[in-house]
């Protein structure tokens, strides 16, 4: 593992969060590309494991970036990865929240919403596909991934049940 350039990571994340319409899943593939392929800080498997661990924790799913920061560089890493989460919210949210209360039906706002939504969804699909390819090496893995998707689409259950079942399947050596 190389020594992480925390300043570069901080600035890159900050820029990403400012354009991350659609939330954390939309920039997941870009964080993966940057950390795994550009900076070589983690392997693809490590990235996927860190993402998975954070899904088990309470709170917003986005905390995987905090866990990644901790893993890379301890407390300094936590600061470098977590501060960028809140800066866009603190600035843009207050400005836009104010404007939106004043002009809820502005044509520009509606055009942005309608135009950008499909791009966001495409990016989130990219995130899911990058993650699926990082964790799966054979057909049994893909089977578990797609079976999970199929069940979740039909049943509303706490995701922890699925993660627990996955852990058991892994320990038993089924996947």
């Amino acid at each position, binding site marked *: 593992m190389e020594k992480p350039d925390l300043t570069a990571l901080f600035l890159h994340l900050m820029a990403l969060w400012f354009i991350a319409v659609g939330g954390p899943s939309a920039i997941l593939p870009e964080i993966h590309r940057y950390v795994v392929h550009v900076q070589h800080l983690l392997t693809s498997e490590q990235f996927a494991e860190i993402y998975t661990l954070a899904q088990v924790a309470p709170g917003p799913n986005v905390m995987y970036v905090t866990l990644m920061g901790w893993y890379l560089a301890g407390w300094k890493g936590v600061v470098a990865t977590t501060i960028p989460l809140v800066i866009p919210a603190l600035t843009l949210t207050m400005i836009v929240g104010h404007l939106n209360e004043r002009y809820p039906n502005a044509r520009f706002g509606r055009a942005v919403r309608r135009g950008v939504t499909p791009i966001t969804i*495409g990016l989130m699909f990219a995130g899911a596909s990058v993650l699926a390819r990082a964790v799966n090496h054979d057909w049994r893995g893909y089977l578990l991934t797609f079976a999970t998707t199929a069940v979740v689409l039909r049943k509303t259950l706490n995701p922890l049940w699925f993660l627990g079942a996955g852990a058991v399947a892994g320990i038993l050596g089924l996947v």
Partner: protein
Amino acid sequence: MESTDSCRRVTKLALFRSFSRITLSSFGGALFWTRRELVERQRWLTDREFVELLTVSQLLPGPNVVNLTVMVGHRFGGFGGAAVGLAGSLGWPCLVVIGMGVLYRHFGELPLAQQALAGMSKVAAGLLLATVIKLAMVLPRHWRPWLFGILAFAGVGILRWPLLWIVAALAPVAVLAAWKEVD
């Protein structure tokens, strides 16, 4: 529907406690718990106000939960309210994931932990895929949005080009095309 007095001030401690409670209850999705606390338990917002704030928070860049926390905190406690809301909402999960980071460093290489993580990570990928499919259902049955979605997917997910390029290239065209549809 009864309306809440959205101008009233709420103490910083109350904001901190509410957002702490929400975040510590939210395993795998905060939406259910957020509505329950803000609308049903505290009655700070009506359902309608909650949905409006939620929509804005989803359209803004950044994590939805963070955006919603900032807006609600700001509305009831000004800038300080937004700050304590965030502290409650992100502080605890931060400590929990750091605890997990410590465990992962020490035990992550053990075979049993590796096997469990391998199984869980395949499930996590499936959970994310299901969420995205559910969201994709809101797209209109029309070729144009799907084209933009597929281009974004191909550029970032398959070609692995930088996200900033893709968004800078696609977003202006997509907004312009949508501009003609909304009037």
